[in-house]
């Protein structure tokens, strides 16, 4: 076609543009522009009225200048004048200027809106389209206010031209995106949905974008679109390549529309109607089949369009995650693409396979491609493709292939691009920990990681290896030996020195028997690195030295000598100086016993979720981490190690630990340390920021230490794991009552009531919970007429005690020891949920009734569901999350016989009492109940979804729970199975 269109060419504009292009320098260009601006200004201000053509030309010049990147502060009025011109091109330029240089002047906006209004009502389709384009391009709130109610009418009116309908649909979409509150579909909904049936393919293409967006927000109102979309799709898929005329693109029928239909279907669960579903599955199969047919054209456009549909179909198959056959076929198809010569296809196949890897049906099929993916990691020339390969390896990793994958990732790290190293390091660290069968492999991996990519190993990674070494005594000796060897390298990374310092300080004794790693050799090795390290590392090393003095008395003299030298004891850094002074003093005045107590081996860290996962999530957007994991870490609120932003995580970790368990150690050091500084301190010398307990209790600990010997304090320490409560010389608490569990179950769905009653005593309970905190009032009533003497109560958290994990922190005030006959006393319990737990805390009550000791242990009705926060969500969100929690261990299911009434209201009351939000209109079957909530613990949030399917005929229930943490799913399932 010749350049027919130049009819309205503006000569002045062309000259100006070529002038600008001929400018030799930036200065010359600016000079030319200023000259032009002055000219235009004078024309606009001049007395002579400009004709439409000149106005258009000048406005167009201004536009050009603006698009070159210069500021334009005038000409808006002239552009607005052009809007009311009868000449199409003048109007067009006016609208273009308005769309590009949006102005917030209210008078101007009024004029613009007026012009738009006129054009919309002009019934001239080209003018109407121009006006709609302008609204869509600007999309401001003011325009939404003015036109949001008018456009739906234009969209569905019978006499509207097709081209106007297309513009109206997308214009409405834009307004909906910017001001959803102003776009109310209401009565138009079903007519908009039926645009999917329109004769004109262009109208369907435009309308489907609008419908998809609206469906995402209001899935229920638009759900009739599913069957329409399926039949439209089926017609396109089965049509011959010539049927759709100009909508066929390189022999592919309507590729854009097909992709959008498939995307729309991803807003919904699989169709319930068998016929619709069958038709859809047929479409998906046809699409998969077509991928195997020989191409109809060699052009890349043909294969791109065809594969665009294929990838979208695979996304839908993954979204449904219910057709194992299709999932495996999809995986095989992607497998073929992994070795395709087109880089784009390899990239997309790797990306898409990442999501397939998280489906239980296709995980194994994905794993068969491991060699290809490893090869891609090694040989792809494009870093973004290698990145995808690394993501996929991460997603397909499980216990069976972890060693291979971690080894490959490590070897890739040696040459990896700088841009992805940090992320790779995190991934290796996570996989190594997650799939570690033997922890020596884990230690090796992390030390290798530090060796290969030390600069990219973040604090979280080396904190984590230390946590794990401390918590697992089977690996401590190995860790000490390995780190000792690693430190012998002539140049080793500072992170290695940190790990080395910490581990040898704790466990150097385990390898001290070997003369090659005798205490003095260890010390000299560490100290040889000292001068090359930064202040925080040196501080850590000083703490390691004082630990050495305790571990190996024979090094005392040498170390004291080091501490005493001026570069330590007079160091200009106040932190180092203080440590040197205090450690020197401590080592010279304290007796070996005191030293041994103060410098005792660190207690195990509370078991926490890996903070590395949160870090990875923070670093990378979606897609990098497998979706489920991403969700997990999202729910855990990025606070896995007790506060994402807290800098020196370890000081908080060790402090919390020390506070709750080794009170003595931390108390002494609490006395020592007066100037807490933010440098990392792994040795828990500083308890300035205790994370586990409130600051107040850190203060109390001072009292606890001294009261250890006294008889008065013991039961005040109920929140402890028994470190202090071993002191009181009293009878052991009785084992829990046989009916304790039954009593507990009564309170799962309610917070108040009578917990226990016998002839002597009645215990009532009232409780309230907010987030991870709870307060419980216990009322002890003496039913007799005789006084109870020596009435004491204590609370302990069983089960977890053995594993040293404190999941609940329960604080009580002691009650009066005397309860008069007929009287009632009250006790308040403050409860803090630190992590999820299964066993309820035990309440032990002892008193003397007529001289006989009564000893009674009950389970306190504190169950994990008490810390639920209800979460309202739409059906779409619900199913999306449901799907994301698809790992088998995240789900717990139980089918059981009804023990109580199956009445709807009773069930609803129970489910609400559970603490979750009861979601209406989510489950397609109205008989079923679905609930959603988030369990708030101190360290993390656990998202929980629940589905209860009653079968009134069989008097049975099926209960399914999916939670981001598997232990929670199991526990909730156990608890709830007793309730219905």
């Amino acid at each position, binding site marked *: 076609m010749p350049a027919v269109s130049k009819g309205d060419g503006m000569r002045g504009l062309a000259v100006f543009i070529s002038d600008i292009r001929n400018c030799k320098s930036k200065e010359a260009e600016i000079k030319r522009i200023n000259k032009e601006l002055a000219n235009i200004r004078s024309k606009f201000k001049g007395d002579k009225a400009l004709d439409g053509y000149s106005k258009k030309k000048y406005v167009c010049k201004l536009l050009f200048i603006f698009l070159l990147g210069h500021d334009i502060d005038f000409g808006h009025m002239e552009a607005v004048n052009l809007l009311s011109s009868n000449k199409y091109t003048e109007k067009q330029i006016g609208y273009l200027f308005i769309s590009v240089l949006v102005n917030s002047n209210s008078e101007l906006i009024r004029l613009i809106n007026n012009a738009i209004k006129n054009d919309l009502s002009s019934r001239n389709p080209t003018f109407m389209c121009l006006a709609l384009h302008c609204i869509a391009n600007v999309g401001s709130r003011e325009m939404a206010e003015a036109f949001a109610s008018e456009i739906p009418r234009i969209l569905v009116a019978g006499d509207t031209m097709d081209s106007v309908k297309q513009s109206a649909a997308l214009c409405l*979409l834009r307004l909906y*995106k910017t001001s959803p509150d102003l776009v109310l579909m209401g009565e138009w909904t079903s007519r908009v949905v039926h645009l999917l049936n329109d004769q004109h393919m262009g109208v369907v293409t435009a309308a489907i974008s609008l419908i998809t967006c609206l469906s995402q927000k209001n899935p229920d109102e638009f759900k009739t679109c599913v069957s329409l979309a399926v039949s439209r799709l089926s017609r396109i898929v089965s049509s011959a390549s010539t049927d759709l005329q100009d909508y066929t693109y390189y022999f592919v029928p309507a590729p854009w529309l097909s992709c959008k239909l498939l995307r729309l279907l991803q807003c919904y669960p699989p169709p319930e109607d068998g016929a619709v579903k069958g038709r859809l599955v047929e479409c998906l199969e046809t699409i998969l089949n077509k991928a195997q047919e020989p191409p109809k054209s060699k052009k890349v456009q043909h294969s791109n369009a065809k594969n665009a549909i294929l990838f979208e179909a695979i996304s839908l198959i993954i979204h449904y995650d219910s057709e194992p056959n299709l999932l495996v076929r999809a995986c095989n198809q992607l497998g073929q693409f992994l070795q395709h010569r087109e880089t784009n296809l390899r990239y997309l196949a790797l990306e898409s396979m990442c999501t397939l890897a998280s489906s239980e049906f296709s995980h194994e099929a994905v794993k068969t491609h491991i060699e290809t993916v490893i090869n891609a990691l090694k040989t792809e020339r494009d870093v973004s493709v290698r990145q995808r390969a690394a993501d996929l390896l991460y997603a397909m990793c499980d216990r069976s292939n972890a060693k291979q994958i971690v080894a490959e990732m490590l070897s890739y790290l040696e040459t990896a691009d700088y841009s992805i190293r940090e992320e790779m390091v995190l991934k290796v660290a996570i996989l190594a920990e997650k799939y570690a069968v033997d922890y020596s492999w884990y230690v090796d991996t992390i030390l290798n990681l530090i060796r290969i990519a030390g600069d990219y190993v973040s604090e979280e990674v080396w904190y984590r290896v230390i946590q794990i070494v401390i918590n697992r005594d089977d690996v401590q000796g190995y860790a000490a030996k390995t780190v000792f060897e690693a430190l012998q390298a002539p140049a080793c990374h500072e992170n290695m020195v940190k790990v080395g310092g910490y581990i040898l300080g704790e466990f150097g004794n385990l390898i001290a028997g070997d003369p090659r790693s005798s205490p003095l050799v260890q010390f000299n090795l560490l100290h040889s690195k000292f001068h090359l390290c930064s202040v925080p590392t040196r501080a850590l090393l000083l703490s390691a030295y004082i630990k050495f003095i305790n571990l190996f008395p024979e090094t005392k003299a040498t170390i004291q000598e080091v501490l005493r030298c001026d570069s330590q004891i007079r160091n200009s850094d106040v932190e180092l100086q203080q440590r040197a002074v205090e450690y020197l003093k401590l080592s010279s005045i304290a007796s070996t016993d005191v030293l041994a107590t103060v410098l005792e081996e660190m207690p195990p860290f509370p078991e926490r979720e890996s903070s590395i996962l949160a870090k990875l999530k923070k670093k990378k957007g979606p897609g990098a981490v497998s979706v489920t994991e991403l969700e997990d870490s999202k729910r855990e609120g990025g606070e896995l190690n007790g506060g994402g932003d807290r800098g020196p995580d370890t000081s908080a970790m060790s402090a919390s630990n020390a506070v709750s368990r080794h009170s003595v150690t931390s108390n002494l050091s609490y006395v020592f340390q007066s100037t807490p500084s933010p440098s990392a301190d792994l040795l828990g010398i500083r308890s300035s920021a205790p994370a586990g307990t409130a600051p107040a209790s850190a203060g109390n600990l001072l009292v606890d230490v001294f009261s250890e010997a006294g008889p008065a304090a013991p039961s005040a320490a109920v929140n402890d794991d028994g470190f202090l409560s071993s002191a009181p010389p009293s009878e052991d608490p009785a084992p829990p009552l046989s009916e304790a569990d039954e009593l507990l179950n009564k309170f799962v769905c309610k917070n108040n009531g009578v917990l226990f009653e016998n002839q002597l005593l009645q215990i009532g309970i009232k409780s309230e919970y907010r987030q991870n905190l709870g307060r419980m009032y216990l009322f002890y009533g003496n039913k007799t007429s005789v006084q109870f003497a020596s009435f004491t109560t204590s609370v302990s958290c069983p089960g977890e005690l053995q594993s040293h994990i404190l999941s609940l922190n329960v604080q009580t005030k002691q009650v009066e020891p005397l309860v008069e006959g007929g009287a009632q006393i009250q006790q308040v319990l403050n409860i803090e949920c630190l992590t999820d737990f299964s066993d309820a805390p035990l309440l032990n009550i002892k008193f003397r009734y007529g001289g006989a000791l009564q000893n009674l242990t009950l389970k306190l009705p504190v169950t994990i569901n008490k810390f639920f926060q209800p979460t309202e969500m739409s059906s779409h969100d619900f199913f999306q999350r449901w799907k994301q929690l698809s790992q088998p261990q995240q789900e717990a299911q139980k089918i059981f016989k009804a023990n109580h009434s199956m009445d709807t209201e009773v069930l609803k009351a129970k489910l609400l009492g559970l603490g979750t939000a009861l979601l209406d209109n989510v489950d397609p079957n109205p008989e079923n109940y679905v609930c959603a909530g988030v369990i708030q613990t101190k360290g993390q949030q656990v998202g929980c979804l629940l589905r209860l399917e009653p079968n009134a005929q069989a008097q049975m229930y099926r209960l399914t729970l999916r939670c981001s943490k598997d232990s929670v799913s199991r526990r909730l399932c156990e608890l709830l199975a007793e309730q219905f």
Partner: protein
Amino acid sequence: MQFMLLFSRQGKLRLQKWYVPLSDKERKKISRDLVQTILARKPKMCSFLEWRDLKIVYKRYASLYFCCAVEDQDNELITLEIIHRYVELLDKYFGSVCELDIIFNFEKAYFILDEFLLGGEAQETSKKNVLKAIEQADLLIGCIFFTYLLEKSCKLFIHYKTAADLLSVKQM
């Protein structure tokens, strides 16, 4: 789609279309960063990249780069073909389009884009229908042969001056 940018091998922006509200400053920063990122990539690399939280789809046609930013759930391959269809539309309209056509007739390039994509979504994918809409508009004012000739000669002059720029649109 969030935005579309056209820029030359020298990094000069030739067309920018924004479908999300962003301040002028943000737009400039995004264009600068993105142009730099893409120009640094080698020819055989893949056409997609992750950039901030967006997916970038780009393709080079002769001296011009066409680059779209789409959201996470959008389909990369179909976006690539959106670019191609736009190039086809320009080609058909201008008759073997080159970078200069887009420089001198930038407003036309915007008009064609508006007929094809609106609010970041495909409005009309039929080549015939898009061009029909544009030509109808052209016919409304009639063809003034004189100005056309003037412009063409001007274009030829520049053509001669910056011959290096001129490669007709054949895909790389």
